[in-house]
């Protein structure tokens, strides 16, 4: 266990350094983009412009702003007020948007894992069967079709034809299903292909032949002996998949009118809402680093050959 603790400590150090670099780079990039948060078509009088800037501390030298803002985050966990949604602080915006994005993400990734691994296993075990061909065609389609096209089709079929789900909005289980399925579909496709490839490779191994030779049934061999090895590529894919699901929800949030974080991410940047954009970047960075750490850990758990290095 000591190895795990050491690994986590060292990882934590790197996380802190990475976060600082990401913060600094984002801060510099954002302040160098032309235009400011309070630009509008109707030009404000210079006095009023100055007052607004003073209220949001924007009249200070850039370096002072940088240290003030960073200090507030570090010591108070406060990302400051949102410049555009002036009734809210960045923390409040994140507190409201995060559960929505997380719910949808968890649902989508669960769907992707369950559907992907099952169809992958079936395809590998029944290679060249009708099942294999249809699953793999579906997987290829799922990867190739952009999720807004998928969403439009899903709305036409499930909302207007079958009337199973509401068109959009947030607040009930029925409202989460359609967007989560559309979000998870391409990842289900990838996972299916990865599982199939992994499974085929493992099924050709000597120890599987031995297992069969011992007289074990197919179900037992596949589920107990082959699956563990076959899932390794899938586990390592979960890190980037989580990243993709979190950042890829923007379009679906618009189509299904979901109050998640994806829209904030893009709009904060385009509207020059500096604190909100920084807050979003930092949240996403934290999530990614956390997921990657979890993936590394579980990799070591599943595969006995992987050792967590203590040095």
């Amino acid at each position: 266990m000591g190895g795990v603790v050491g690994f986590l400590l060292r990882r934590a150090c790197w996380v802190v350094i990475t976060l600082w670099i990401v913060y600094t780079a984002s801060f510099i990039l954002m302040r160098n983009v032309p235009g400011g948060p309070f630009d509008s078509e109707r030009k404000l009088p210079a006095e009023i412009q100055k007052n607004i800037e003073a209220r949001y501390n924007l009249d200070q030298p850039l370096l002072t702003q940088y240290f003030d803002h960073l200090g507030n985050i570090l010591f108070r966990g406060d990302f400051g007020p949102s410049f555009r949604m002036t009734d809210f602080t960045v923390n409040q915006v994140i507190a409201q948007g995060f559960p929505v994005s997380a719910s949808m993400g968890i649902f989508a990734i669960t769907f992707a894992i369950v559907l992907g691994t099952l169809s992958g296993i079936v395809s590998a075990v029944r290679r060249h069967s009708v099942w294999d061909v249809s699953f793999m065609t579906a997987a290829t389609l799922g990867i190739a079709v952009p999720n807004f096209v998928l969403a439009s089709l899903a709305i036409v079929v499930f909302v207007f034809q079958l009337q199973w789900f509401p068109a959009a909005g947030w607040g009930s289980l029925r409202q989460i299903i359609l967007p989560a399925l559309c979000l998870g579909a391409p990842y289900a496709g990838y996972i299916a292909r990865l599982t199939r490839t992994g499974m085929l490779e493992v099924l050709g191994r000597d120890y599987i032949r031995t297992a069969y030779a011992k007289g074990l049934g197919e179900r037992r061999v596949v589920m107990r002996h082959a699956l563990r090895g076959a899932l390794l590529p899938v586990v390592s894919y979960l890190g980037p998949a989580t990243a993709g699901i979190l950042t890829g929800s923007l379009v679906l949030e618009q189509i299904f009118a979901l109050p998640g974080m994806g829209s904030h991410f893009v709009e904060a940047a385009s509207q020059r809402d500096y604190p909100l954009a920084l807050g979003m970047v930092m949240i996403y960075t934290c999530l990614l680093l956390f997921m990657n750490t979890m993936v590394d850990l579980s990799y070591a758990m599943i595969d006995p050959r992987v050792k967590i290095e203590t040095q």
Partner: protein
Amino acid sequence: MHPSIRNAFPYIALAGLFSALAWAVSFGTLPPADFSFHNGDEVKTVDPALAYGQPEHRVLTAMFEGLYREWPIGYEMDEQGNVISEPEPDENGNYPVGSAPGMAESHELSEDGRVYTFHMRPGVKWSDGSPLTAHDFVWSWRRTLHPETAAVYGYQLWYLLGAKKYTEGRVEVGDLVEIEMPNRPRADQPFPRGDIHRAKLLGIARPREVRPPENASDEDKEALKATWRSGWVYIVDHAAGDTESDSEPTKIAAYSKNIVAGDWQKYDTEWLDGKKPASLPNKPEKCKQLLLDFESSVGVKAPDASTLVVTLENRTPFFIDLTAFYPLYPVNRACVEQYGNPNWTRPDNLVTNGAYTMEFRRVRDRMRLIKNPAYWDADRVKLEIVDAMAVKSATTALNMYLTGQLEWVTDVPASVIPDLIARPEKDFIPTPVLIIYFYRLNTTRPPLDDVHLRRALNLAMDKQLICEKVTQGGQMPARSIVPPGLPGYNSPLCGEFDVEAARAELAKSKYAKLPGGIPKIEITYNDNDTHRAIAEVIQQMWKNNLGINVDLKSLEWTSYLDAQHTMQYSVCRAGWVPDYPDANTFIDMWLTGGGNNETGWSNAKYDALVKQAAEEPDPDERLRRMEEAEAILMDELPIVPIYYYTGKNLVSPKVKGFFHNALEKYPIQLMRIEE
């Protein structure tokens, strides 16, 4: 790693997955709303002083109420809210909208049209039960006008005497000023809370101005100037804590917002009547703000709790309509002061005075409004729970409407407009709104200096075709600069599309006989697909119908504004959104040398008519003067109107009390559901 951990891992992972899933699908149930509508983009703020934009307008008019409130002209209800009489729509489907008494019961207007005396409605209350008085309006307007509030729409109050000067922080020697000391309980509160005392301004000492470097940007120059101004020293006849006396100055004091090193007495100083006081303090004292004295010099006063006296700079016939507009709504002083900015706008804290209060708010999801039982007219408000849905995509909103999730959609995708108009439910009625798309013609450049040629250009333009084939959003071809829909105002129209008449006009032009033909015209527009498409169609029309060669020039936004402002164009596309619901906002921009004229056009008779209208006490006569003025404009055509924008409201047939109008004012408190 211990094998037992390894063996347990799949179960741990599964358990984790299931608990995450259980969390993800756990939802609190929400009682359904009586009425849900598409409010467009997320509301930026519900602070009436800071808000601007349509989504804000819709929720603010539901939650707050001004001295007057938006009301369809001729709409009457009995005490229980049963409709007695409904107005009639005009031929475009628009209803006349005006103002009805709200927080004020009535008002009187002085002879010169500048002093309004409002009588507050007895017994009106805030949603927390506290009484609402005239003092609330004085405090709220002062907050809106205070420079640190930085209200974008603050200029809607600049019709008040001294209000503009107060906001801009301009003071002159001899003025009564208010000096706020730097002792606010919370420095970030953008309204005065420190100790304030009044004094007469005796002199202003200005340090030497630092010259900006040659290559400094405009912003840097502005910033430098602002810093310089903050270092000014103001000499007044009373110090803080000093008792005020009208007769004899007791103690001369000096204040500055930014104390700079150096002897301020060597500054270049402007003294009242050129008189320098005998003794002066060595160092100025620091103050937070020094502004025109609000109480004595800005035109709003509450002589008692039930009377509000408003004094305007000039006669402003649409001022009553302005009092129904959200920048002039009152806010609850106790609430703002207790919770501070912006926390007072949180649903738990917000105190309102209108038909609704806010129950909760979820960013980018919805704002739930519930009926305010303390509202004076609550008996006639029928919808108990209203959801303002923040749905950005018009397509999504349409889907939600079609599946019964919304009762009112405020914007629809342009591509489906023909289908919506054809619906048997007749729930989509595009009516003109007060926004105009037009072309400016530079009347100082040949050949556009010739009125016959300008008329020919207008006559040769098939605006119907542009609306039907190019913009396709249900827009209406325009023949006047003032869009239809303003009560009592009838625009005189310019010529309709007629190729023969256009050629006849062209023949009268002095350029028709030029040996080299008519000089080329260039259409300038800001880079945008629709603007380009329209310009291309017009280019073809002028070429085919008149034989005039036209070039197109696309500019990026700022360059386009600059070209227009400096009149480096011959024909330039433009649009105009009114500041206030009155024809004047479209008419007075064409005065000789007006800031937004930008065509070089000048007509003495037009100028005289607009001036007469401004001074005319009779409201009908005033409109007639403006109509006469517009007739001149539509005859001489320094601008060619192209189309009026249309409202895109899709309203469920079961919603009653919804009146389409050109001002896009739809009070939710009038709406009701009848199955």
